[in-house]
């Protein structure tokens, strides 16, 4: 099997390398293995959600509800643990909560034919409310569950487990998108929904499935998050999480209008975003300037992708 490499794919890694070297020039500590691991670890949850979001965006959809879904899944896992269930059951329960949110999104969008941006915006609020109802405003400390904490804080072969999970999910995502019939169907659906329907595809089922995938990824991110800080809270996945996730996908070259996109490019988008975040931190740039700089950079990067897209057509 040979991976199909998008031509645009070369540009982003080059920018990432250049940016890393630039930050490293001012702060040599940035160019160490420890620092690289720290960058990846910070981006693991965003990265996992971005992989799921890529499939949604390929269908010209969007999911704004990933932040609260992350919080909900952490809480569901916490309460399952507290009730005395074993760790694997807690993990499955957390994932199930994310899948349920995704399924509700998916049914309303695919069958009800309502715009994804409105449905998931509503869901953003509904799921946050649900999480607050379940968990209240307090922090819930998770203690005494070694194997649960291992997910977020443990390490394997020198790499944190959360990074392994991100790499694993990214690999699955790349595999699904590149090699499976499902990935092909999602990509053609996004390119032309009517032609897809007339070619005998089950378009509603396909659209539905992408929101389930996205919800499930958000839930996995929620489990990692809660185990990383030994805490579950209804306020995790704060406002802006969904924007980071969507930015990573778009930086990877996916079009909000749907169609072909590459999960591998999303992974590079995640790295790009991570290096900006960590690089600005390590250079002691104040948070207000960080936000402005980050926003500007994203708009410039998007300008370039849409330029190269336009020049091709």
């Amino acid at each position, binding site marked *: 099997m040979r991976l199909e490499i998008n031509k645009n794919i070369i540009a982003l890694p080059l920018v990432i390398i250049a940016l890393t070297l630039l930050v490293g020039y001012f702060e040599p500590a940035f160019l160490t293995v420890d620092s690289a691991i720290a960058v990846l670890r910070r981006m693991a949850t965003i990265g996992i959600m971005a992989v799921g979001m890529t499939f949604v965006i390929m269908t010209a959809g969007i999911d704004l509800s990933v932040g609260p879904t992350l919080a909900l899944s952490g809480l569901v896992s916490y309460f399952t643990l507290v009730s005395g269930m074993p760790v694997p059951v807690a993990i499955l329960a957390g994932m199930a909560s994310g899948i349920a949110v995704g399924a509700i999104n998916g049914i309303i969008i695919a069958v009800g034919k309502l715009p994804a941006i409105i449905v998931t915006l509503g869901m953003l609020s509904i799921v946050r409310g649900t999480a607050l109802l379940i968990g209240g405003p307090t922090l819930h400390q998770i203690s005494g569950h070694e194997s649960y904490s291992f997910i977020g804080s443990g390490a394997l072969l020198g790499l944190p487990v959360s990074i392994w999970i991100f790499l694993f999910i990214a690999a699955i995502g790349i595999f699904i998108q590149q*090699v499976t*019939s*499902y*990935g*092909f169907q999602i990509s053609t659906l996004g390119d*032309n929904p009517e*032609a897809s329907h*007339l070619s*005998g595809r*089950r378009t509603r089922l396909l659209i539905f499935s992408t929101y389930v995938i996205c919800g499930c990824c958000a839930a996995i991110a929620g489990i990692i998050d809660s185990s990383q800080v030994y805490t579950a809270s209804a306020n995790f996945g704060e406002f802006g999480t969904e924007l980071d996730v969507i930015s990573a996908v778009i930086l990877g070259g996916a079009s909000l209008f749907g169609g072909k996109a590459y999960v591998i490019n999303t992974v590079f988008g995640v790295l790009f975003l991570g290096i900006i975040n960590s690089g600005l931190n390590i250079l002691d740039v104040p948070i207000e300037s960080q936000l402005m700089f980050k926003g500007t950079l994203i708009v410039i990067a998007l300008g370039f992708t849409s330029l190269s897209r336009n020049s091709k057509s």
Partner: protein
Amino acid sequence: MVDALAALNISKSFDGFIALNNLDFTLQSGEVRALVGSNGAGKTTLIKILTGAHAPSTGTISINGKQLPGGDPAAHISGGISCIYQHTSLAPNLTVAENLFLGNHPTNRFGLLDKKEMKRRAQQLIKDNETDVSPNDLVADLPTVKQKEVEILKALAANSSVILMDEPTAWLSFPEVQRLHDTIRRLKKTGVTIVYISHMMDEIFRVCDNATVLRDGKLVWQGSVAETDRSSMVQHMLGDGGQDTSNERNERRNEVEKGQKTLRVSNLSRENLFSEANFSLYQGEILCITGLIGSKRSELLQCLFGVAQPDKGQIFLHGIPQKIDTPRLAIQLGIGLVPEDRRMQGLFLSHSIEENHVAASLGDFVNRGLFNRKRVRTRAQDTIRQLNIKPDDVKKTVGNLSGGNQQKVLLGKWLETAPDILILDEPTVGVDVGAKNDIYQVLQAFKEEGGAVLIVSSDVEEVQNIADRVLVMANGKLSASFDAQALSHEELVAKISGESVNEA
């Protein structure tokens, strides 16, 4: 006398496809001119050039002797050309007065909108043109015909001396059409020049003075409608049939005469679209349904492919009644549909040739959920060779191919599903001559291997070239079938224009 509108030596080409070829189009003040031609004849391109949406490749446009820049919509409107499109271009949530002066509203001395003056002028305009609306009416609340009248007023408010009307009656009932025609006659008296674009022969003969007929981007006939009749007009539109190959084809057809009946349609009806359609399709034949645009042929095809549901009637496949409610089921039952609009309904434009090729037959290329790219490639390469697709590279993005090659990719995609019945809706619109012949050959080969082909086509030349039997559809009614050879070109044209069908 200076021409009210003079478009001279107009040519326009898109990526090597010549849409208009050295056309002269001049109109006198107060003239109502019909502009007719079948799909792809170049009418739309001409309208777009006249409104300034497209710049012509060559040629000049002038109004009352004053030359317009070309390719600048604002300059064309202020120069005096307005266009009324098939679908309304009014802002539905604004009032009539606001719509009339949208873009050039009167202002008071502070530069703000002068509502009083706007209303006064709107009232004046409405009165002058005997229109039955109030300046305060919300456009969304008006019936379609009044919206059309408001659009005409809007054109007059912009001081237009030439008004283009693109299928203005497509959404109107019969009395409303009469009313619109009265308005046109009134405008004519005031010296306004009108270009009336329509497929409705009745209307053209009722309201127009002269007619211009386009075919393949060229002027084929121009003259007074009083000196011609419907069938010669349709004849001009559709062109002279190619009779050359008919004998050879006749022999071939006789060989496959008694094929199996694969599809039978019985009393199929859909409210307000078509009624009581009856026909059979046999193995090893090409059946064409022809007629003018708007005769609801595509709507009939949609029912056969599960895109829409008939209200009444039945569809039999190999003698078994079937309820086809999704395209997915239609494909499983062995039906393929090459839709009318390849870009909107058929192709995945940002995907490659090979990806498009397998999009309707994925099951054959998937093993336990995994895509067999190697098999995809070989099959796509075979098709590229068989259909003579250029460029012959399976990785090329379909959006960058020419119209003819795109159509071939689409045809290849459906042949890959190995259908019993292949349905094609206007298979060669916007396709160059070479690709047309390639497509015909492939369809002949498919038929000779026992396939059944159903084609909807408005191109009489094409129908005479390729059909074994012909059905004519007019206003949602299907005629009995004719042997394509038994019918002369003139007879077929007469049937299409609706004369003989009415007599029978």
